[in-house]
């Protein structure tokens, strides 16, 4: 696991963002853009974490409440929220987060394996944990977060 993480993130930059009081990050290579929140059109029969779809320059973009997706409290989107437009497999998804904090350049030593905890979601979606300046940042695996997209793209 540690080796895999090292290989995947070696020399890569990560985008760190905040949800509530926790910090997460994703590989910068999968982030297409970051934009402000605009009201989404609700989708019938959608799971709770799918807030709806928005128009991203002519592309219909689904918006996922990452907080709810990770099993935390549903976000109440305001204009201060941001949408991270990320490429997952062949699809593009908008991730609603509270704020983007910074861009990290990681060295392998920063990444620690995920501790063995009970929560299924964290175990599946977290690739590792970074300790930077006393902060704890969880590296999220987007492919694991949206397995249906991944399988379709494969």
């Amino acid at each position, binding site marked *: 696991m540690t080796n895999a993480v090292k290989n995947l993130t070696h020399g890569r930059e990560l985008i760190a963002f905040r949800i509530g009081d926790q910090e997460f990050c994703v590989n910068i290579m999968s982030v297409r853009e970051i934009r402000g929140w605009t009201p989404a059109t*609700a989708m019938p029969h959608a*799971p709770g974490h*799918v807030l709806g779809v928005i128009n991203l320059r002519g592309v*219909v973009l689904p918006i996922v409440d990452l907080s709810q997706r990770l099993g935390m409290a549903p976000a109440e989107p305001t204009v201060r929220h941001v949408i991270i437009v990320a490429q997952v497999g062949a699809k593009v998804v908008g991730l609603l987060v509270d704020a983007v904090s910074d861009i990290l350049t990681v060295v392998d030593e920063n990444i620690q394996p995920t501790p063995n905890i009970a929560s299924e979601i964290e175990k599946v979606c977290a690739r590792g944990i970074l300790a930077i300046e006393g902060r704890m940042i969880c590296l999220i695996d987007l492919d694991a977060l949206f397995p*249906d*997209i991944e399988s379709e793209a494969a």
Partner: protein
Amino acid sequence: MDMNEIKEIFFQECEEQLAELEGGLLRLNDGDRDPETVNAVFRAVHSIKGGAGAFGLDDLVSFAHVFETTLECVRSNRLEPSPDVLKVMLKSADVLADLTNAARDGGSVDAERSRALIGELEALARGEVETLARVEAPVAETPASPAPDAGTAIETPAPSSGNNEGFQPIPFSFDDFGDEPALETADEASCVPTCEILFRPRSDLYAKGNEATLLLRDLSRLGDMSIHCDMDSLPPLEEMNPEEAYFSWRISVATDRGEDAVRSVFEFAEWDCDLEVRTVKDEPLATDGGDPDEAPMQPVPFDLSILDDDQGPSIVETESPAVAAVNAAETATAVSQAAAAASRNTAAATAANAQGAAAQTIRVDLDRVDRLINLVGELVINQAMLSQSVVENDSNGVSSINMGLEELQQLTREIQDSVMAIRAQPVKPVFQRMSRIVREIADVTGKSVRLITEGENTEVDKTVIDKLAEPLTHMIRNAVDHGLESPEKREAAGKNPEGTVRLTAKHRSGRIVIELADDGAGINRERVRQKAIDNDLITADQNLSDEEVDNLIFHAGFSTADKISDISGRGVGMDVVKRSIQALGGRISISSKPGHGSVFTMSLPLTLAVLDGMVVTVAGQTLVVPLTAIVETLQPEAAAIHSFGAAQRLISIRNSFCPLVDVGKILNFRASQANPVEGVALLVESEGGGQRALMVDAIQGQRQVVIKSLEANYSHVPGIAAATILGDGRVALILDVDAVVAASRGQSLKPEISLAATG
């Protein structure tokens, strides 16, 4: 341009040629005897062969060659294009298509099948020679084996080296090629100018599928000619490269058509040979008749086809000229006919080229067109957004900005229409593919089927065409396999043993309607019903109208075929068809008359890119309902609403009752049903018959919307067909009316797992 690009162009052209070929053969099959049709067919095969030769596609070349040889017999009227002959040819066209595809995609073909067909084609080509000999021998009037004529004989010097083991040059005469008797032209020869030609082909000439003999033959048609073949550069056999060009020819032609006519013969070859043309006013030069042992050589009428391949009969003829004087004459006649046909063909080809130039077309990568369409879609949305914000900020409404915006709106609309027109294509290619399917299935089932197509030039968006082939194939198979009876049964029923399948396309109110009608037995409703009961689709005591019974065949897992056949009957037929048609935003229905056959009617949108829709509000959400589904809109009155059962409500419209469907509830936008009196009812006609009144809160207006895929980044949403972007820049969902109606019938809209709902 690299080789692959050129190859790609070749394959694109092949597709066109194959379509042309098949179309021509089908016309011949329908009794068309226009020589131009035969020529077109021949040309198609010839072009494929030529191109394939250039790319070294040997399988394709050899098959096309045999095919071409047989077609040549038809073209020169030596082989009657009877239905049997055409059947073989149509099959050959199919194999040719397979070979082309295999050459492109690297797949494999049924070698057995193509070998068998090569045999059949060769038999046909041979057969006609024999028949011809029988028919023509008694009436042969042409003077047998012409006398040696200094002006027309080819002189063949002895090979320079003794090493040409067994190589026996076969001299041949061209004097039978001319339409007019050789004697006359010989007389005229003295008074017409003579062209001296030095023709030295390079190996490229042969590699590109040209043939020196054919060029010489064409040249011979210009007038009296003498040819001297220069074989000096021919190396000994062991040093010889079989693909190299060693021969050159010195030709003198007595022609009054000038050098240009001579050069035009070499039009397609001039880059690959050394060519010198020079006009000499006086008598044709005596051609190198120096060799005393060569001069008296008896020219033998020679079937040119021997140069192309090894066809038995002609060799026999050339070996015994004395015995086969009559035969020879007949061959000569045949060859002259061939030559005449060839020249006709050249003329026709030129005419066709000229036509092609008149209707100018360019090939454009489909992606580019799609990008353009997307951009124009953006432009339309942007324009709508702009006008909306201007309207919101500009209260007097008559400012010049508004005027300009209106013009912009018209322009964008026009641009959009023109761009859409680029993608519109006739349905012809799909229909043509169907004729092959019909042939193949007719073959397998032993039925005799005629496919009639109408309205092939009806145009529809390319994406619709591409997606039409599969469901149509299914349906055609079903029509032939299940729809039509066996010839015996048909005869017993007093019908023409040959079944008819009619495929029609036409435009109707902004949609394309495709009808597939067979004149078979029609749907056996008793059996359908029984089957449905067996499969638990309906209960035994359920009372169904004929229409409802017919529509049962669209149910999943339903097949009426008694036994599972290779062709159809796996029970995946019609429900798959229905789903793919629906995926295209289309509808399919069936009407059947016992004993008279069935008619499947598909109605499809002309484009998958835009849609005329009614913008409505449901539970605070904006939805778009396709206008084509809406029959009428009405404001329900409290008195017209009747409760029915626990939760059902009906609305009475002109004394008929129609179930009321709350869109908001079906889509889960609200928990309980809204009060119908406060909303608007949209009366919709849904697939599978039956009207429903869809309840929405309000109608915002009617507009053309650009269809955006939801599946691209999300997944299919039950009850929603697609998405669009409205003037305010927000996404609106397009309602899938059929799915909503189906849901109201009790089939629940099953939410699919989307964006990791399971996570």
